[in-house]
């Protein structure tokens, strides 16, 4: 019964609503006056006509094209046209008393602009001062802008020709127009036009508006309403279907217009209409108020003007309203009745519902508890339907899988991004699950963000046929395992490469671990004692380093010989902190030192050999020296004898034949004897030279003064009876061979004497100066000296700078001196300022620093 009542009431409602259209008037002839030539600017009206919206509304509309001189307002007010399209200038007319009413604002913004020639350089209104412009009579925005910018008095306003070429030829500097129109022209002619928009200067009015006269509203309100509605419908079509609209315009209205131009215009209008934000035709009373205020500010409208009655909304038909009101009340009453009936029905149902709800609540609570467990579990939990679709996933599962609940719930289980490889390796085993088995598998998955996860999945089929899976993230464990494995193999590789054995032994000598390389060489080790395993003995080594290492906690280093492998190792035993099976442990690094040991052995052998060689050499040397000694000894003796004989017999001959010999013969024999003498001296000197070279140097602390004094004493008379003045300075103690040093001074003094032979007074002075590390001795004479250019040659063997007939000598003396001094570690040199300017001979001896030399 209740349902039937409802049905009846509904039908009634529909019928009353359907009555409304019946109240409209029959087909009526209507004129619409456009304000300009046919173009997209009026598309909506074309559409409404073409698509039959007007016809549906019972209107027969005639669309009248406008032109340059069209006064749309006049047409409408006079009654020639019922409706007109015009700018907000209509509000000015209204203010003047014209009975016009705005029905709809088609363009929310005005496309009006003052077009200028770019070449003129005019960019702002103020730059129009002194210029000429043409304005259409209804371009109120531009006028408003000029007033606002205080330039209206400075501009010459000409009649609007509509010919934009006047801008190019300079007839005018500016012309009013729509951006929609002219920017197209602009692009066609290559941008010669610029424009100044009133919007830029605060003048933002509506664009084209649809309006009518007050009379028509009062007399034919339905017509107005119908026309308005159909027009707006037409506009909606026009803005949604530009393509079709363009077709209509070209075919029916102006086939001289290009599609391009119309499309361009359409796009420009789209911007002005904001069809996505504002309903086409919407008029905001507030906006109109603003427009009025702007005009009032500019002095174009009286301050007393009231806008009421200008807008369509002020005029909605009261009769129409009454009918509408009655219908509304009827509808309302019907609704109330319905409501009451419904309420009673509901009351019965509520009782039943409450019971059920209570029951449901209890269920919900227990579910919540379990849900809590699942939601916050540490493992991922996934519930799947029998068919394999995911019913439920907990937070952890989502986190592991890396996907949202929404992306998983309801999807087949393969939505989970397992890797191909892991699915091949461990496919989903529904078969096993159906048998009631618990299936555990390890799989990899790659999350949507690209990260890799390794998981363990444990799945079971529940009694109700659903599946339950528990996910566990093993990635970290896996990574750690891999790392350990890597480190371990690295470690073992290094050990192998360096032939270092690594082992771990506990305090009871049990081998815990041996590195694989070594183990391989030795054979298996488990359970063995270290001495058994490494040494092959049956008891611990006597010098076992393990106790010490454990005691001291320090790394113990020892050497071992590994019997089993016949090699030497250096063992580093390190006590570890851990315990294994309760026993303390050590780690050992066994570094192979076989090579080292071999080298050491070889080195020792080599040293021994070397020493032998040295000893042998030394004795050889000693022998050689001895041989040399006896050789030179023999030689000198054997050389001496014949020399002596030559001298002897020559002398005898000379004596025995004294009277027979003439001057020349005597001379000849003299020469023979002299030469022999010379040879004798040479032999002596050579003998001495060789001796001083080989003789063992026995250094002692000796007084240089003493030696020099002795030598000089020996030479006191210095060959002949001339006066000899000697000056001996303070000479230090030296550490040198006495005998050899004596020889040095003998030679030097001998020279000094020799080369001062011609002097009446021979002056010899001996000095010593102390340098940093050495003593410098010198002996100076006032003899014949020598050419300093040859000072480096003096000390050579057999080297002489003077003729032997003038100064006899073998040239060995100074060589001897040099030999002896250099053996003492000193240097020798001589200086002279030149021939006849004396000479000074120097030698150095290192200052004895103590210890053994």
């Amino acid at each position, binding site marked *: 019964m209740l349902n039937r009542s409802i049905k009846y009431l509904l039908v009634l409602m529909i019928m009353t609503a359907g009555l409304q259209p019946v109240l409209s008037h029959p087909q009526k002839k209507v004129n619409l006056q456009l304000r300009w030539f046919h173009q997209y600017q009026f598309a909506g009206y074309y559409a409404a006509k073409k698509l039959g919206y007007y016809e549906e509304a019972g209107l027969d509309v005639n669309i009248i094209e406008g032109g340059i001189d069209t006064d749309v307002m006049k047409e409408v007010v006079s009654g020639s046209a019922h409706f007109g399209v015009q700018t907000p200038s209509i509000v000015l007319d209204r203010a003047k008393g014209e009975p016009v009413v705005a029905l709809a604002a088609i363009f929310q913004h005005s496309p009006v602009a003052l077009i200028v020639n770019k070449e003129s350089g005019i960019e702002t209104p103020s730059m129009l001062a002194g210029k000429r412009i043409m304005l259409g009579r209804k371009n109120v925005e531009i006028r408003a802008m000029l007033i606002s910018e205080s330039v209206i008095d400075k501009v010459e306003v000409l009649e609007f020709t509509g010919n934009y070429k006047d801008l190019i030829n300079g007839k005018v500097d500016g012309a009013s127009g729509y951006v929609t129109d002219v920017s197209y022209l602009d692009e066609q002619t290559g941008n010669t036009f610029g424009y100044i928009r009133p919007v830029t200067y605060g003048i933002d009015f509506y664009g084209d508006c649809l309006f009518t006269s007050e009379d028509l509203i009062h007399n034919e309100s339905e017509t107005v309403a119908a026309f308005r509605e159909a027009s707006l419908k037409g506009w909606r079509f026009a803005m949604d279907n530009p393509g079709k609209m363009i077709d209509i315009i070209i075919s029916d209205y102006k086939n001289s217009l290009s599609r391009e131009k119309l499309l361009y215009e359409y796009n420009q209008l789209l911007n002005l209409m904001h069809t996505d934000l504002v309903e086409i035709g919407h008029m905001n009373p507030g906006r109109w108020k603003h427009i009025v205020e702007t005009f009032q500010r500019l002095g174009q409208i009286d301050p007393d003007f009231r806008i009421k009655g200008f807008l369509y909304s002020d005029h909605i038909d009261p009769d129409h309203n009454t009918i509408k009101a009655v219908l509304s009340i009827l509808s309302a009453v019907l609704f109330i009745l319905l409501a009451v009936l419904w309420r009673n029905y509901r009351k019965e149902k509520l009782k039943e519902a409450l019971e059920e709800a209570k029951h449901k609540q209890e269920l919900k609570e227990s579910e919540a508890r379990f849900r809590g467990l699942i939601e916050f579990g540490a493992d991922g939990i996934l519930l799947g339907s029998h068919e394999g679709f995911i019913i439920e996933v907990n937070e952890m599962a989502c986190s592991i899988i890396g996907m949202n609940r929404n992306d998983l719930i309801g999807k087949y289980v393969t939505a989970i991004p397992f890797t191909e490889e892991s699915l091949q390796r461990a496919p989903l085993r529904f078969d096993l699950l159906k048998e009631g088995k618990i299936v555990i598998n390890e799989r990899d998955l790659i999350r949507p963000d690209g990260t890799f996860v390794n998981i363990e999945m444990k799945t079971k089929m529940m009694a109700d046929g659903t599946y339950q899976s528990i996910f566990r993230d093993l990635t970290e464990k896996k990574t750690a395992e891999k790392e350990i494995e890597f480190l371990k193999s690295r470690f073992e590789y290094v050990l192998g490469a360096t032939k270092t054995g690594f082992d771990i032994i506990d305090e009871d000598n049990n081998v815990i671990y041996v590195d694989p390389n070594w183990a391989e060489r030795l054979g298996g080790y488990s359970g063995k004692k270290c001495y058994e395993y490494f040494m092959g003995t049956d008891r611990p080594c006597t010098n076992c380093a393990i106790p010490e290492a454990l005691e001291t906690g320090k790394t113990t280093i020892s050497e071992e010989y590994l019997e089993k492998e016949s090699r030497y190792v250096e063992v580093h035993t390190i006590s570890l902190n851990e315990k294994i099976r309760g026993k303390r442990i050590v780690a050992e690094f066994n570094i192979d030192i076989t090579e080292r040991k071999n080298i050491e052995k070889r080195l020792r052998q080599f040293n021994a050999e070397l020493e032998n060689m040295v000893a042998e050499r030394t004795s050889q040397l000693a022998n050689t020296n001895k041989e040399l000694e006896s050789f030179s*000894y023999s030689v*000198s*003796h054997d050389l*001496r*004898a*014949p020399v*002596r*004989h030559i*001298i*002897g*017999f020559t*002398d*005898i001959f000379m004596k025995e034949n004294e009277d027979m010999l003439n001057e020349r013969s005597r001379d000849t024999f003299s020469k023979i004897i002299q030469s022999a*003498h010379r040879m*004798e*001296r040479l032999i*002596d000197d050579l003998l001495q030279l060789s001796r001083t070279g080989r003789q063992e140097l026995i250094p002692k602390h000796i007084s240089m003064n003493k030696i020099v004094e002795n030598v000089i004493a020996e030479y006191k008379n210095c060959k002949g009876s001339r006066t000899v003045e000697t000056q001996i300075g303070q000479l230090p103690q030296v550490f040198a061979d006495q005998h050899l040093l004596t020889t040095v001074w003998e030679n030097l003094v001998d020279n000094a004497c020799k080369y001062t032979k011609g002097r009446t007074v021979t002056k010899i002075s001996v000095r010593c100066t102390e340098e940093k590390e050495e003593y410098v001795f010198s002996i100076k004479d006032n003899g014949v000296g020598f050419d300093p250019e040859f000072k480096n040659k003096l000390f050579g063997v057999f080297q002489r700078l003077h003729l032997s007939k003038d100064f006899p000598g073998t040239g060995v003396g100074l060589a001897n001196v040099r030999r002896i001094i250099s053996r003492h570690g000193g240097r020798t040199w001589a200086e002279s300022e030149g021939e006849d300017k004396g000479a000074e001979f120097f030698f150095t001896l290192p200052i004895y620093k103590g210890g053994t030399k």
Partner: protein
Amino acid sequence: MKSKYILLIEDDQNDVELTIRALKDAFKGRVAVVNDGADGIDFLFRRGKFSGRQPENPVVVILDKKMPKMDGVELLSAVKKDENLKKIPIVMFSSSNYEQDIIESYEAGASAYVVKPIEIEHYYKAVRQIGYFWGVLNEENPAVMNQEVKEK
């Protein structure tokens, strides 16, 4: 008076000649010459080819240190071992002024050591001095003399 004589043991013939010439001025006696150590020994010990030599021993022996067959020092040592012969003064004549040689000679029992001078004059002088000293000035060892008488 027995005729004094000097024994010269010298291997170099020239040196012999020179020495004899030199001695001539200083020593009027004879100079017996042998040319090597072996002969020297034989002469002194009156054996071998010299077994028939005169019983008197020389007043001085001038001995060259360096000789073939037997070194001067060797002879010296050998002679000094003999009771009779050890009393005979022996002068070592040598080219060497090597200290070691001098020591060695004295230790072996040389009465004097003369380095053969370089200058021939000095050589002569040295030889003359030796001849004069030992041959003229020096008083012989009476024991030796007596012995010789005994033997006769």
